């Protein structure tokens, strides 16, 4: 009987089968990022600005002042005993405490944004109540930018994070396991082409990459109304380049490791800086300028930027070429290095 089916096809199919029969892998690749998005999306959801909580310390004229302050829409004021007021301020339940008197005193933490804002609002209210007049009339016009919510920022970041995690774990873990069980050696004893074996990982990654993107983007769209402002095709192209880069890195991490512990250590070492620096959960602009060249050189940073450019700004691919080049460069260099130093036995 002649060959029944192509080895690359069979190897890829085996990868897919092994994956979908591993409930833990399904959880980490598909469920975990969605749960993360759900949790963070709820915690940091955009909502009408909550009134700031302040307190007026008990004393003469305190009740009147508290009532006046409470009428200010941006503030909720309560009357509290000095001890309780200090305590609640210290533990962050209050933004500011007012001590009434001939000269009003504000107790607040100037390093807290809500405290500083409360200081201005309270002071405005106190001064106006004392007869201050604003000489200039101002008008207001409110605008909410599409894609400016935290969840709009977060979903592309989680997408990048997921492409990194599942690429590295999915490939690195499986290869080391096959090496440890002497399955790699057994396969080498067949006419199987080594390139087919490695390619099967890349191909199966593509299949899962599409599902991962669909799961997370679909979830964001359905639950938080996160839109993809650019084209879906562009998004997929960016995701493919990203998946390839991290497949290469996963291969590199696993190219010589003999134990699961060994490869886990290597991969955590590689991924942890990107979890923190590459702008997954918050903008990397928060880090000092001196760190920026390093941050820009990490593969996840341009990937997250490119994903955000496509999803939030609707940028065309041509605007992302430099980023794609950095990501692709990581992929090619790590893949080539991995092939060179790969330990088959």
């Amino acid at each position: 009987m002649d060959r029944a089916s192509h080895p690359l096809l069979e190897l890829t199919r085996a990868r897919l089968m092994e994956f979908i029969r591993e409930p833990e892998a399904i959880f980490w690749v598909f469920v975990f990022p969605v749960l993360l998005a759900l949790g963070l999306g709820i915690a940091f959801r955009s909502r009408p600005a909550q009134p700031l909580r302040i307190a007026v310390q008990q004393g003469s004229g305190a009740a009147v002042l508290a009532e006046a302050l409470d009428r200010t829409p941006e503030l909720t004021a309560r009357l509290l005993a000095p001890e309780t007021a200090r305590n609640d301020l210290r533990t962050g339940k209050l933004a500011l405490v007012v001590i009434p008197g001939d000269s009003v005193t504000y107790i607040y933490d100037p390093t807290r944004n809500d405290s500083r804002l409360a200081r201005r609002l309270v002071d405005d209210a106190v001064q106006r109540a004392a007869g201050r007049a604003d000489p200039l009339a101002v008008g207001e016009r409110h605008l909410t930018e599409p894609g400016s919510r935290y969840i709009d920022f977060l979903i592309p970041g989680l997408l990048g994070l997921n492409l990194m995690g599942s690429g590295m774990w999915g490939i690195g873990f499986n290869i080391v396991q096959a090496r440890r069980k002497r399955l790699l050696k057994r396969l080498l004893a067949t006419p199987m082409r080594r390139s087919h074996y490695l390619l099967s990982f890349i191909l199966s990654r593509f299949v899962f990459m599409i599902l991962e993107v669909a799961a997370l983007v679909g979830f964001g769209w359905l639950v938080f109304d996160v839109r993809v402002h650019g084209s879906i095709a562009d998004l997929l192209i960016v995701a493919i380049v990203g998946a390839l880069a991290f497949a290469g890195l996963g291969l590199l991490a696993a190219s010589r490791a003999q134990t699961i512990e060994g490869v886990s250590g290597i991969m955590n070492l590689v991924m942890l800086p990107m979890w923190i620096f590459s702008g997954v959960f918050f903008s990397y602009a928060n880090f000092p300028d001196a760190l920026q060249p390093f941050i820009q050189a990490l593969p996840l940073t341009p990937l997250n930027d490119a994903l955000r450019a496509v999803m939030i700004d609707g940028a065309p691919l041509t605007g992302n070429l430099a980023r794609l080049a950095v990501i692709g460069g990581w992929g090619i260099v790590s893949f080539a290095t991995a092939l060179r130093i790969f330990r088959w036995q």
Partner: protein
Amino acid sequence: MDVEIALRCQGLKKRYGDVVAVDGLDLEVHVGECFGLLGPNGAGKTTTVEILEGLLEADAGDVEILGGRWGKDDRVLRQRLGVQLQETQLAEKLTVEETLGLFRSFFDRGRSVDEVLQLVQLQEKRKAWVSRLSGGQQQRLAVACALVSHPDLLFLDEPTTGLDPQSRRQLWDLVLDFKASGRTVLLTTHYMEEAQRLCDRVAIVDHGKIIALGTPAELIASLGAEHVVEFALEHGDSAPDEWLRQVPGVRDVRRERDGIFLTVGEVHRSVPALLAALKDRGLALSRLTTHHATLEDVFVALTGRHLRDG
């Protein structure tokens, strides 16, 4: 008559650091025979086989397989060899059928998955995950993966280690069927019974060298006696062995912890003479058994150690 050579190696050497695993090993395996490498664990059998399979590189020596050479004819050779490695764990979450289909896809020609399933009697397990198979079934599957290509030369490295007697016998039948189709098997084992049952010729390996070579019958005959008389004395005996060597028909005397072993040509002559000699000395027997000499006895005679001692 000239025999066709399936495999030949000369002066094979391999060392790992200070340890010499294979130390100048020569081998010739004929087409259509089942050839056994018999030796204790650590004798260098697996290293030898992996060099022959083209998975390890020898430090020195020459290997010729099915008329080809590693490094030159790899692609052709891989198509024609069937390999079962020691301690390979196949992918746990693939079914038996998927595993065989995967291995089958690597070869240009060979058997269908159904055929191989039947051959190794795993039809009922075709949809079962590899992790759900018993040890014997997993081992049969490992051999099945080596048989999907219908290879000309089959390598089996300790195929029955750790198996129960029934699983072992099933695997033996597989090997005998394979050999009956005129194909060649190279097998390593540390079970002398396995070598005796399956192998046309056996090479006894110790410390990376072949210390004896021949058919099982020839090797046993080389002891110069075909039976072993084994006995123990009631109160022990510290006297020298000289008087035992005087017993008619005794070729060799060996003392071990659990008794004294005599290699003899004819049991019916030596045993009465032994009993008479014991009576003369006033010694009482606590145990007396006899058995046909085995390859184990050959190994012990050559090395003074047992196969299982490692």
